[in-house]
């Protein structure tokens, strides 16, 4: 078990804000693990993702340490892929799908356009886009939301990074598509032995495949540990409340049932 990134006493305050978005975080990201960062609005979970990826907006004040096993911060696009919540905002509307997926490999792996393009075709197959050769020539608006998110994942993985961050990557999608995308991420990360940082507000969704979970609230780390341990024996009141507020199909309904 080797630590990929050691985060110590990390605080982030956005420009113009008095209250820090992240406050005194200590957390290790272990190489090859699937780590879920769980929290509600304002918990700081997306700020953590951005800090780790080096994607904080300019003017943000960052204190504390992030020590990478490689000795230097990972380079977004090459060492680290990032999948955002809204694929229509992260894809360029005037470039074809092929150009966008090929770009990463061309730029970071130094492939020719031809090689990068044929690798893009392979990536689209791996994210299970139907008719990938046609999709290469399509524009983002011609695809559904779920297919666009598959393309965004293909683009994030084009340079074969060792580390993938998915920031609420499934929360704008409907449930059926969400389940498909989560299983795709799980499959890709497993095949390539990648490290995955999965940011979500849904503790049950994370429990399905994360090795470890870290629960955030109001910019602080509430607790972290192996998924099974935290879910079976949560130590903190907030974690218990979060688990209790989950609803699934076995939760007793709020209305009286009608006779069939």
């Amino acid at each position, binding site marked *: 078990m080797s630590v990929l990134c050691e985060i110590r006493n990390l605080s982030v305050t956005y420009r113009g804000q008095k209250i820090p978005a992240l406050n005194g975080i200590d957390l290790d990201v272990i190489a090859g693990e699937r780590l879920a960062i769980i929290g509600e609005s304002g918990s700081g979970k997306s700020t953590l993702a951005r800090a780790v990826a080096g994607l904080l907006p300019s003017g943000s004040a960052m204190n504390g340490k992030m020590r990478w096993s490689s000795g230097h911060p990972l380079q977004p696009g090459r060492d680290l892929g990032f999948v955002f919540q809204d694929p229509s905002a992260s894809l360029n509307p005037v470039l074809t799908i092929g150009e966008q997926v090929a770009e990463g490999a061309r730029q970071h792996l130094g492939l020719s356009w031809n090689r990068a393009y044929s690798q893009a075709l392979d990536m689209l197959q791996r994210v299970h886009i139907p008719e990938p050769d046609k999709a290469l020539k399509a524009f983002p608006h011609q695809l559904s939301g779920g297919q666009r998110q598959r393309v965004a994942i293909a683009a994030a993985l084009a340079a074969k990074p060792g580390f993938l961050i998915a920031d609420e990557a499934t929360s704008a999608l409907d*449930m059926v598509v*969400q389940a498909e995308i989560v299983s795709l991420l799980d499959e890709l990360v497993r095949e390539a032995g990648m490290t995955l940082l999965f940011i979500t507000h849904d503790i049950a969704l994370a*429990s*399905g495949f994360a090795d470890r979970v870290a629960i955030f609230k109001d910019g602080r780390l509430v607790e972290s540990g192996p998924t099974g341990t935290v879910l079976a024996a949560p130590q903190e009141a907030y974690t218990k409340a979060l688990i209790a507020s989950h609803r699934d199909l076995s939760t007793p309904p*709020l209305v009286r049932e009608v006779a069939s």
Partner: protein
Amino acid sequence: MTLLSVENLSKRFSSGGRQVAALHDVSFMLAAGETLGLVGASGSGKSTLARILMRLISADAGRIRFDGGDWLALTGPELRRRRAKMQMVFQDVLGAFNPRATVASVLDDPLRIHGIVPKNERPNEIAGLLNRVGLPASYAERSIREVSGGQRQRIAIARAIATRPSLIVLDEAVSALDVSIRGKILELLVELQEERGIAYLFVSHDLAVLRAVSHRIAVMDAGRLVETGTARQVIDNPQSSAARALIAAVPRFATGTSAGISEGHDS
């Protein structure tokens, strides 16, 4: 007593020169005081159906009877008057409000437009509505932008009940909320229903939310209503592949970790 009946409703949109059936021959009934959960994936037609019901778009074919009358035949002042009985709560509440509005003005509009109470009683009525949805009366003076997402959704509910409707169409009304707030809003909706006999058509892609509040569930797939039954029938014994896919997609705690969820949260 049947409050709403939808008969053979169809709607086509043209997309890139092709005709796409957004709704195909959809029929269902809703009783007074009942909740029908309408579930389906993106593009299944559930929002089109909600918009036709609200008379935001027109249907190509079919009939809607609401409160004993032909709902699609209503026009002008008569439609405006009867609209008080059918209200709507959206997912994106901020987008549904004038951003410059105060909470008081958001609630004053329906009271004034529909003449629910005389002018001098409106401040009292607004205070009562706010209290009813769990907010202090002092919130009336705040700007709609100053309040949190959960509070804004409570205000949207207060606005919807202001006109004393018999039906509220809830379109993904809790999907954008944090889970801890979501449960409280669902509880509020159920309380209001029990107290006032309001019927809900609750449109969502989240079957777990619909399971919590629905008496019956209708499943849509590619513009068709493929299955209708009691909530328990549809979830325990789904007949359509669409229902089975929606059930399988609901996140649940992985096996072996159920200790944490056995604590009831309905108390």
